[in-house]
């Protein structure tokens, strides 16, 4: 049970996505999930053990670490990726529901090839269009919220080398040093940029879907004439 499960579930939605949606999914898995698992987790692996404070006071290090890192970058990214991926499940559920309805309609009379039904691609129109557009909208919201939370929690996107801590039980003010600050800053900026690219892709996809919908709508009255 790991990111592979998420990939399997979302892979099913890929079939019914637009081209921009497919690019978004590729960017998500290669430049975010994979980077998180193979690289970022190692960089943040020793974050507390190598967080050193210039004091012998027991407990001071724990308290300062907790004060400056209420929730670790790595965990926030993991939650961000999970939340950003879940709206696609709405689309997967809608498609599964339509397949189920079709199966029920067909099995009452004709013979049905289950394999063919499962492989059939649904076009993004009608209620599915609304579900798909809503899911993209929620993706954008979640991305924006997480980027804002990052900014607020860590006062920007840079990892400082030195933090000054005066939380009890630390005596007066204590200097605490973060491990690998430059590497962490680079990864933070990288993940942020990829987040931004994903947001742009989502916005482009929404515009594409809206334009497609508007172009189809005026054609309908013309054909009726």
């Amino acid at each position, binding site marked *: *049970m790991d990111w592979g499960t998420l990939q399997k579930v979302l892979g099913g939605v890929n079939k019914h996505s637009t081209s921009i949606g497919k690019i978004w999914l590729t960017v998500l898995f290669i430049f975010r999930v994979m980077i998180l698992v193979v690289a970022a987790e190692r960089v943040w692996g020793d974050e507390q053990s190598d967080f050193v404070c210039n004091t012998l006071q027991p407990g001071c290090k724990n308290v300062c670490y907790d004060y400056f890192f209420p929730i670790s970058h790595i965990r926030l990214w993991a939650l961000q990726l999970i939340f950003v991926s879940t709206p696609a499940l709405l689309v997967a559920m809608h498609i599964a529901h339509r397949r189920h309805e079709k199966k029920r309609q067909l099995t009452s009379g004709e013979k049905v090839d289950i394999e063919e039904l499962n492989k059939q691609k649904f076009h993004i129109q009608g209620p599915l269009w609304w579900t798909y557009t809503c899911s993209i909208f929620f993706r954008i919201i979640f991305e924006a919220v997480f980027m804002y939370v990052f900014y607020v929690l860590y006062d920007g996107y840079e990892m400082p080398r030195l933090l000054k801590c005066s939380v009890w039980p630390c005596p007066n003010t204590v200097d605490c040093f973060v491990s690998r600050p430059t590497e962490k800053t680079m990864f933070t900026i990288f993940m942020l940029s990829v987040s931004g690219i994903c947001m742009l892709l989502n916005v482009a996809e929404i515009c594409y879907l809206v334009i497609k919908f508007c172009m189809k709508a005026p054609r309908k009255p013309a054909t009726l004439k």
Partner: protein
Amino acid sequence: MSWGFLRDILSGVTKYSTGIGRIWLAIVFIFRLLVYVVAAEHVWKNEQQEFECNIRQPGCENVCFDHFFPISQIRLWALQLIMVSTPSLLVVLHVAYRESREKRHKKKLYKTPGSMDGGLLCTYLISLIFKTGFEIGFLVLFYKLYGGFNVPRLVKCDMRPCPNTVDCYISKPTEKKVFLYFVVVTSCLCIVLNVSELSYLIFKYTIKCCLKRYDKKVQTMKSECQKLKYVDPDEPASTALFHSNASPVLVNMPDKPESNLPTDLRG
């Protein structure tokens, strides 16, 4: 043997679940299992090494950690995930039992082994009740063991061999608190889904039952009507019908003058 095993077993349950059941499964997989494996486990990874007490007395840290964490929150969470997922297996077992029965008797005993009726419906309802019970039980256990869902930064310990009272500091308390709230929220969401699924199924099958009974009554009345449409008065069955409280009877009158049966019997 790991969480993948549980995931594979639960994937088999999807086939026999209702719509709400599938949403419940998706929430358990994505927001509970996946979050546990990729994020939460790492937060509690070195909890004892990072648990620090302001004392040099050997053994004091161990004793204090054991006193405040009789069972670690992460292990309790794992047990909760396992216990909450397993009642769904009752349904899978029941379907497997039905299929083996059909094989043994070599004939079709059920519409489909996975159709939700009779015994399978009862099994499903029981599994929902157990799931809800386990969720509530674990939430109460979390609350009782840790004095609410709070993870304090500092705990004061006076267990032997610690001299007097000692300050002990828990590592990453804020992050642990965030994940505990996450556990509570997802648990409550799952409880709500289970209760709504239970109510939906009970309501649906009560209505079905009532409609069936009403249908049956209408059918019997219709068939009686049909039977009595053309009745030969000489038939022995007809006398019984004439004396019953059935709906109006139309009698086919023969051309025999000695017949003295009434032409219209409206009881």
